[in-house]
């Protein structure tokens, strides 16, 4: 497995976890106070930071773990970053992710038209980003495993 593919697995694991964490925090706050009063900015910044840092740290950790496991099996560690096929798969996944980015953009425009609270606008964008990332990651893994 190349570093690129491992990174996709990490992305698929980290993104939904962080989204569940973010929405658990802010929606539990929404149960007690109006959305205009909710403190959602800090959880949002933390969530975005954790996604970025989590994917980087997870990719490095998985590369180290797999290298140790391969060495223990007496095999050559596979630390290739990827090649043309990985780039094609990356493009394919990004194209799939764009669908949700588009939906998110339209959702944000509609929410702005109705002058809803910024909490809903930011959350809609965040959700669209997460769904796009997960959808793109699944498409990439299908391409890696079944071909394309």
């Amino acid at each position, binding site marked *: *497995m*190349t570093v690129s593919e491992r990174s996709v697995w990490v992305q698929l694991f980290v993104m939904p976890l962080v989204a569940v964490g973010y929405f658990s925090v802010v929606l539990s706050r929404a149960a007690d106070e109006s959305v205009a009063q909710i403190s959602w900015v800090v959880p949002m910044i933390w969530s975005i930071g954790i996604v970025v840092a989590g994917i980087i740290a997870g990719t490095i950790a998985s590369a180290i773990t797999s290298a140790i496991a391969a060495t223990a099996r007496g095999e050559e560690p*596979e630390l*290739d970053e990827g*090649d*043309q*096929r990985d780039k094609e798969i990356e493009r394919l996944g990004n194209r799939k992710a764009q669908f949700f980015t588009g939906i998110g953009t339209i959702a944000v425009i509609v929410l702005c038209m109705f002058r809803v609270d910024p909490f809903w606008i930011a959350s809609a964008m965040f959700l669209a980003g997460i769904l796009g990332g997960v959808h793109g990651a699944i498409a990439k893994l299908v391409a890696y495993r*079944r*071909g*394309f």
Partner: protein
Amino acid sequence: MVGKPTHVTNSIRQLRFAANEMTQADLAERVGVTRQTIIAIEQGRYSPSLEMAFQIARAFGVPLDDVFQYPETDH
């Protein structure tokens, strides 16, 4: 059952064994790609670019047709 994503077939496995049992890793190194890509091509899960196809053929020292085949009846 999901069909293979490509109609292109290949003889890489046979050619590797004919070439002194060349490993997938050896071929990958010669072509300049990852071992996973060679595995994917061999299993018909990935159609390489024309350039990569020529590089694979060159690694075996055979014409392109000896490595890759495209069935007449399939479209």
